[in-house]
């Protein structure tokens, strides 16, 4: 699609639904899992059978509060569940238990900071229950799978008017948010499985005007890329419509991944009246300061703060820091090693190169491997002190990864310590020069580049243990001597 003619400003609100990684559902004890035979994880409560009653899942409530704290929200010390009433086959009770109101949701009025420093306002973080899933049956009919019905669902909604103004920010916001959710262990973040769902609403207005334009809501986005492309498409589609004198409709649009375009799903003529009211089957949630402060003080340091600290205190580059912050386990592993008086840069280098490579090949996480933070500290020290060179370092690491032996022990056992004594090195240099008289002639004839070959031969004689700088220096001295 063409870039717009007139200049427009876009406003993008983000509504994110995250299925919580609890063991059981929101109001019953049915297990939470993905997939499986339809209607095998159901009970009278999540099927909404007459007479059944909900009992709230404390784990879910705590997860939402922890997320709200991570998103700098205020916490509602008195918070109630509401019923959102509407009819749909995937909704077993004819209402969804949710949370309504400006200051009633568990978390409200917070913000998330993007890597570029921009703050995206968060309006609410609330807790609700997921619905079932409509399925088309092979015989042409339709069925409903209620395995997902009642799974705890957290809804995170950005401020209005929205702070996000382009597709890049929309994607960055989602990347950042997902990282926090996964970091806190409250959601597995699998967009492709639908455990993290994003529905942006997009409007544009001519530059210099205040009134927000007519918005469209985008559904079926199941990757970061589709969020970015979808928002971009909507901005351009709306601009093209306005440029050609058309009017925009308030509508819900679906994203078609295969042809990378959106299509109209339904027009919103009037706002639905959901007849929210406090659910009389659930008593209000009341929290006290010690409880909230306890959760606050138990909060882990979040990725963005860690990245800034790694750069400031350890002198790491942004890119290296981010590689360590791929997941919480890797970051914690790194910090443990640093805490053992290891060299941060050296440990970082090991982690993002050899260690990452071996883990990837073995399909393991750091803690699942034979390597402990202490291994990394020893190896980094051996390298930093030139006790071994980097080539030997790789060999030592491979052995440690395989057997779990400590690097110091491997080096001692195999006699891998670097040789810094001039005596043996000079002896080898002389021997190499003697057997390569022709090459030496070429050097002296001005082809100085061949020195590298001679250095390599000397290193070979030293079985890789000679100090490479020293070898280089001594080869050159020997060549220049006569």
């Amino acid at each position, binding site marked *: 699609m063409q870039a717009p003619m007139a200049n427009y400003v876009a406003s993008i609100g983000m509504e994110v639904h995250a299925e919580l990684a609890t063991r059981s559902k929101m109001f019953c004890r049915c297990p939470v899992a993905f997939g499986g035979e339809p209607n095998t994880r159901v009970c009278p409560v999540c099927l909404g059978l*007459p007479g059944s009653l909900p009992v709230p899942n404390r784990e879910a409530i705590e997860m939402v509060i922890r997320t709200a704290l991570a998103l700098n929200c205020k916490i509602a010390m008195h918070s109630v569940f509401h019923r959102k009433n509407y009819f749909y086959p995937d909704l077993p009770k*004819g209402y969804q238990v949710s949370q309504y109101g400006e200051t009633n949701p568990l978390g409200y009025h917070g913000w998330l900071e993007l890597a570029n420093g921009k703050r995206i306002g968060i309006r609410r973080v609330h807790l609700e229950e997921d619905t079932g899933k409509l399925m088309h049956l092979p015989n042409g009919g339709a069925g409903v799978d209620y395995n997902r019905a009642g799974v705890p669902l957290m809804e995170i909604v950005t401020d209005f008017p929205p702070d996000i103004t382009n597709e890049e920010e929309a994607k960055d916001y989602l990347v950042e948010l997902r990282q926090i959710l996964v970091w806190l262990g409250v959601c597995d973040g699998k967009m492709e499985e639908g455990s993290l769902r994003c529905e942006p609403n997009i409007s544009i207005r001519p530059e210099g005007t205040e009134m927000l334009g007519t918005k469209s809501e985008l559904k079926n986005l199941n990757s970061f890329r589709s969020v970015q492309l979808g928002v971009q498409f909507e901005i351009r589609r709306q601009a093209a419509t306005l440029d050609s004198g058309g009017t925009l409709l308030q509508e819900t649009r679906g994203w078609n991944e295969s042809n990378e375009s959106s299509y109209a799903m339904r027009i919103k003529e009037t706002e639905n009246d959901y007849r929210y009211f406090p659910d009389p089957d659930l008593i209000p949630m009341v929290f006290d300061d010690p409880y909230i402060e306890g959760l606050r003080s138990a909060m882990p340091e979040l990725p963005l703060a860690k990245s800034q600290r790694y750069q400031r205190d350890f002198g790491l580059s942004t890119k290296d820091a981010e590689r360590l912050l791929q997941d919480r386990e890797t970051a914690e592993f790194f910090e443990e090693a640093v805490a053992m008086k290891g060299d941060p840069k050296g440990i970082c280098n090991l982690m993002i190169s050899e260690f990452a490579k071996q883990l990837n090949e073995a399909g393991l996480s750091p803690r699942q491997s034979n390597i402990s933070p202490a291994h990394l500290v020893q190896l980094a020290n051996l390298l930093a002190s030139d006790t071994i060179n980097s080539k030997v370092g790789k060999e030592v690491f491979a052995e440690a990864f395989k057997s779990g032996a400590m690097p110091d022990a491997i080096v001692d056992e195999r006699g891998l310590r670097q040789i810094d004594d001039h005596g043996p090195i000079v002896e080898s240099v002389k021997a190499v020069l003697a057997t390569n008289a022709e090459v030496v002639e070429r050097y002296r004839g001005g082809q100085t580049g061949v020195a590298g070959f001679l250095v390599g031969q000397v290193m070979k004689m030293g079985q890789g243990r000679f100090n490479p700088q020293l070898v280089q220096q001594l080869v050159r001295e020997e060549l220049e001597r006569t």
Partner: protein
Amino acid sequence: MTAADLARAYARRELSVREGVQSSLDRINEFDGQVGAFLKLAEDVGDQADRAQAMLDAGEGTPLTGVPVALKDNLSTRGLRTTCASKILSDYVPPFDATVVAKLKEQGAIILGKTNLDEFAMGTSTENSAYQLTHNPWDLARSPGGSSGGSAASVAAGFTPLSLGSDTGGSIRQPASLCGIVGFKPTYGRVSRYGLVAFGSSLDQIGPFGFNVEDTALMAEAISGHDPRDSTSLRHAPIDASSVRNGSLKGLRVAVPKEFFGDSMHAGLRAVVEQALDTMRKEGAILEEVSLPSIQYCVTTYYIIAPAEASSNLARFDGIRYGPRAEGSGHISVVERTRAEGFGHEVKARIMIGTYALSAGYYDAYYLRAQQVRGLMVQEFKSVFDKYDVVVGPTSPVPAFKIGELKNDPMALKLLDFCTIPANMLGCPAISINAGLTDGLPVGLHFMAPPLADERVLQVAYATEQALGATMRAPFP
């Protein structure tokens, strides 16, 4: 025979459980054609009786072991059809027992069958059942009251010594009053609602009917106690039936709200109630007239809160997962037709009232305002309970009315509920006992006590019952 008599007979081996149960069944088979209390009888009564007998023989009996009980048909019974007297649940067989039902089974009570009610417990005459009429055993031309009319009639007719009902705005106490028996609504949260098909969730309470207070208290003890499946269930011990006999009227501080004795009160019924109050005074109770002006708003308030909650509670009956499903093109059409065919007139009316009261733009004026009035009522009663032990009055301003008499005047019927509704608004315990007869029809006396004072209200009811003399059996047949 009362439940206590039956238990004694079992203990003395004068009667086997099968014999005790059979005499109930014989009476039902002979007379329920005229009364219409039961919608369905259980098919496994013989097995239940054998299990109860085994419990008794092993010395593991409880006061209710082998005692036949009837259950209002809005209580879920595993494997036993539960219709709520509605066509929309005509074929619904629950896969689980309500907590109260599970408790009764554990204690060896015999679940004899399911009783008639106003559809989804909406009504005060049991005339709103989609299936049948229930007749008052004192006068078969008259209504047993409602909505738990079937359960009240079962005890009054001597079919079962005990039964269970549910009370959202008087649905246990009013039929108890009209049928001359005892009906008790415990404190909200003291009996689990799990398995009770919801009407007005913040008002609903399961409670027992009995021939006398002692029996009623036994049943209350059997079904009460904390239930982790019900978030609104209170962490409190079961109601203590053994304390019931400890009650005395001497020095009891009794408030008599003048609003309960209004112009709508039937003259003969008023005389019986006044006489009962005199008896209480003679026994040493200190009665004082008080005024609780909020009582005049209770019916209006109730008819906003209960329908609002009902409109949401009944949304699940869409024909998708259970119950009959009407044909239609598309989901909305199927749901509309299923509900149009499945619900009766009164249920539809209340769903519409409730939907309206919760609608955007009306919520503040109706539902929110009603909740505020409810809060005011709680405060007003609290100040009375600070000074008095119990509040007394008639249960209903009129004795049993003729079937069909008020059918075309639903408003008049609703206005009769002002004596019983406050207890649901407050969530407090309340009981109706028989105070005597007017023109051959029973008159109920109604006691309320503050929340959690269930034992007190039972004790006062017991002492008053003793002071008034022997309880009366319906002249049936």
